[in-house]
């Protein structure tokens, strides 16, 4: 395989509601920043790939107008996935494997604020049998949380610990939306909103954007002092129907993690896309990171959860720590679909 690395990342500071700017206006500064950080002019990008979904803000073909922010002239080699930006990164990584181009821009954006997010996400579900009931994402996650709690592999205090640690970590993340320093006791004193989940077990609703530049081989070495090399990347999917899955584990994460080589070396940092507290515990188990001490130092999706962006952000967070020399080898994870239906795992590593 051709060695491909993340050489620059940029994020929009995550907010509850970006009320002034439309999507292209909100995305443009992020694209500009990531190009500046890589030292690349827009005409030097070999391939561009983005991830977004029409349903979030209610506009068909919304990615078409945001493409203006890239400045695709003269015409560019470009693609778009109706998936989290982590999968856009996957497509760009595949493209770079072909050896025809040696740089790629990956971005994603998500504006959840214009619509009723919980109703919108229910449009993902089985259109015959489930979507007509309009179940919300918190309720689905709560079913999973109860299954985990009743399996005896986690307690409500474990969930609270995840919430408190994540929001505390977010105090050091300028891009985070929710950050505070609260105790497990304070968390447990909250009334549940959908038993057994409390509001603090749930992610915020977020508008955000993220961009990453990939480069191959020597080009990566010329663009970054310490490129974050992608050592392994894989993604797998499960059936959507919750009744067909063991909700207390994540078989697809385990599968992707093994294929990406998570266990082939030390893990200095892991960023797991766990919108709900109990999901971090499920993902840790699936990746063999149960007792790991450095999971989601950014605060993770509990601190900011821009739909379609939060997965790419996990890769960006791990990559930036490697670029900055703070970490040697790290694991990033992205998820999509109800209750961790689809999962991507990416292992990144800096040169020694």
């Amino acid at each position, binding site marked *: 395989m051709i060695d491909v690395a993340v050489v620059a990342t940029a994020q929009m500071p995550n907010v509850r509601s970006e009320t002034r700017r439309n999507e292209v206006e909100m995305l443009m500064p992020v694209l500009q920043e990531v190009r500046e950080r890589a030292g690349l002019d827009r005409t030097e990008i070999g391939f561009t790939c983005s991830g977004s979904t029409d349903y979030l803000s209610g506009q068909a073909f919304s990615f078409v107008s945001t493409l203006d922010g890239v400045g695709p002239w003269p015409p560019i080699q470009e693609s778009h996935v109706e998936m989290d930006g982590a999968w856009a990164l996957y497509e760009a990584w595949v493209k770079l494997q072909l050896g025809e181009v040696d740089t790629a821009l990956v971005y994603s954006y998500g504006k959840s604020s214009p619509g009723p997010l919980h109703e919108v996400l229910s449009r993902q579900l089985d259109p015959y049998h489930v979507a007509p009931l309009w179940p919300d994402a918190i309720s689905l996650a709560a079913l999973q949380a109860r299954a985990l709690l*009743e399996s005896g592999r986690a307690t409500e205090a474990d969930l609270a610990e995840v919430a408190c640690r994540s929001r505390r970590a977010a105090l050091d993340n300028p891009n985070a939306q929710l950050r505070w320093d609260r105790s497990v006791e304070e968390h447990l004193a909250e009334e549940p909103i959908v038993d057994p989940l409390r509001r603090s077990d749930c992610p915020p609703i977020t508008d955000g954007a993220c961009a990453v530049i990939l480069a191959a081989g020597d080009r990566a070495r010329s663009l970054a002092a310490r490129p974050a090399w992608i050592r392994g990347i894989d993604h797998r999917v499960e059936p959507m129907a919750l009744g067909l899955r063991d909700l207390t584990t994540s078989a697809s994460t385990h599968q992707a993690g093994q294929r990406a080589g998570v266990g082939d070396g030390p893990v200095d940092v892991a960023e797991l896309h766990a919108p709900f507290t109990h999901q971090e515990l499920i993902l840790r188990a699936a990746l063999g990171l149960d007792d790991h001490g450095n999971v989601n130092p950014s605060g993770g999706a509990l601190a900011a959860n821009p739909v379609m962006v939060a997965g790419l952000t996990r890769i960006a967070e791990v990559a930036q720590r490697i670029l900055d020399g703070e970490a040697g080898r790290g694991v990033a994870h992205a998820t999509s679909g109800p209750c961790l239906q689809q999962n991507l795992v990416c292992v990144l590593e800096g040169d020694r």
Partner: protein
Amino acid sequence: MADAAPPGEVLTAPLVIEYPFSRTTGPVIGAFLTGLRERVLLGIRGSDGRVLVPPTEHDPVTGEDLHELVEVGPGGVVETWAWVRHPMPKHPLDRPFAWALVRPDGADVSFLQAVDAGSVDAMSTGMRVQPRWADEREGSILDLACWEPKR
């Protein structure tokens, strides 16, 4: 069409995406919905012998076509559940209720439905439930109004 926002404010306006989607069912989903209209629950036998409900045209693991419809229920068991304290406007019940994965008797998998139990204290994993059928049924998932604790 626009809100009368004061100068300096960015214009905003309502945007409604609404459609009465009409979905053809094919034979298997059609059979399941026909069953609901007739107050019968159907599953289908998977490649490994498990009875799947709702029935799918294909085995969810192997992708192979499935053919053997099986009557299941009418009673069922709650496999996991979540208690909604504040129902949202589009939820199937307007009072606190449970979402649950219910496995009908004779089936090997569960599916998502609402359970009208009155109070969170009435809910437990493993509890027996029975279907509550809608008074007017027209061949849709809403014909199964919800489940209720077995009396």
